[in-house]
């Protein structure tokens, strides 16, 4: 397998970890609503990460595609553009049942999730 | 515990077969109101409107099959949304043991009967299911 052709985190780094302006726009600039939504977002990220790990063992591609699609949607909703872009790549990889690529992207996703959590912590969320 | 609706719903796409079932029910449980649907979408609407005690559901129909209604009922049960709980008897040609097992495991399914319909067995089943309401 030619690992030089696999994507890296830097390929997604043009997109921001989290666009706070976008996030606030989504919630009509309501800080309390933002906090509520972010709490749910964080919980869902951790749950989805676990589910992906399980479904990956069984190579359950339909399920992996649905989860990636959902992850993409919720990340883009809240302005976590980078994470959404990674999830989009995972959605495409699961559509073509590309195990090495999906595995690789999953590692990048996990780093991406850490970045989001760190960013939120730095911003008191 | 919901009040008895005294309604029965038959969901079957073939008009002759459907008429046969309706006539049959009119004979064995004449005190019940009969409703019929030729497709699952109409069947679903009628199921919710009339809240039947019993549903006779053909699994194989053009368009959406019987599992459409089963999926909806199960989502309703799991989220405790439903104000009623019909006994659903599904009619299946039962091609394999796996298929039979899969159907009988579904929480929305009260009984599975084969095609062609064994009317004597159906009569016993119907009376048993309506009694336990």
């Amino acid at each position: 397998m030619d690992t030089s052709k696999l994507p890296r985190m830097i390929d997604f780094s043009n997109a921001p970890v989290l666009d706070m302006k976008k996030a606030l726009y989504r919630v009509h600039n309501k800080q309390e609503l933002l906090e509520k939504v972010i709490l749910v977002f964080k919980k869902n990220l951790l749950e989805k990460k676990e589910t992906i790990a399980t479904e990956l063992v069984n190579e359950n591609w339909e399920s992996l595609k649905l989860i990636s699609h959902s992850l993409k949607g919720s990340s883009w909703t809240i302005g976590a553009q980078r994470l959404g872009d990674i999830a989009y790549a995972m959605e495409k990889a699961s559509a073509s049942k590309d195990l090495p690529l999906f595995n690789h992207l999953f590692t990048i996703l996990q780093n991406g999730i850490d970045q989001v959590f760190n960013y939120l912590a730095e911003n008191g969320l | 515990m919901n009040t008895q609706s005294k309604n029965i719903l038959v969901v079957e796409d073939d008009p002759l077969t459907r008429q046969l079932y309706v006539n049959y029910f009119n004979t064995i449980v004449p005190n019940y109101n009969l409703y019929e649907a030729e497709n699952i979408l109409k069947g679903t609407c009628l199921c919710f409107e009339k809240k039947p005690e019993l549903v006779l559901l053909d699994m194989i129909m053009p368009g959406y099959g019987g599992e459409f209604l089963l999926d909806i009922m199960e989502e309703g049960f799991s989220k405790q949304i439903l104000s009623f709980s019909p006994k659903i008897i599904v009619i299946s040609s039962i091609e394999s043991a796996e298929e039979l097992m899969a159907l009988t495991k579904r929480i929305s399914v009260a009984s599975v009967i084969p095609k062609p319909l064994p009317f004597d067995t159906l009569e016993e089943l119907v009376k048993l299911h309506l009694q336990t309401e």
Partner: protein
Amino acid sequence: MKKNNIRFLIVEDDEMIRIIHKDFLEELFPNCKIFEAENAAQGICLYFECRPHLILLDMMMPLMGGETFLEILEEGHRTKILKEMPKVVVVTAIKDVKELMAIGKRFAVEAVISKPLVQSQLKALLEDWIS
């Protein structure tokens, strides 16, 4: 539709979006009742059990999507089983123009809005319908 008795149904698989839509509606109509469904199957159950006046409907959902929800409403209306006319506002991430136009022509669909829904859009739509 009267402001004080209004019932809404949100059919949307993304929990975050459900929270946002619910907040928007509660602020606009403090006395309203809001029901939530994660997919069209739950949506269909809640529609019949609760008879909402207005539905915010996502199209792409696991298990059963918005298309199916609309089909049920259409069939119910066609067969005269459903007497009331709900209003459906589709809120979707679908970008294809032909698809969006086709959705807009469906029974009970009053408006098709691209995600994300903004509160002012909702207000503009609803204040026409709700006294």
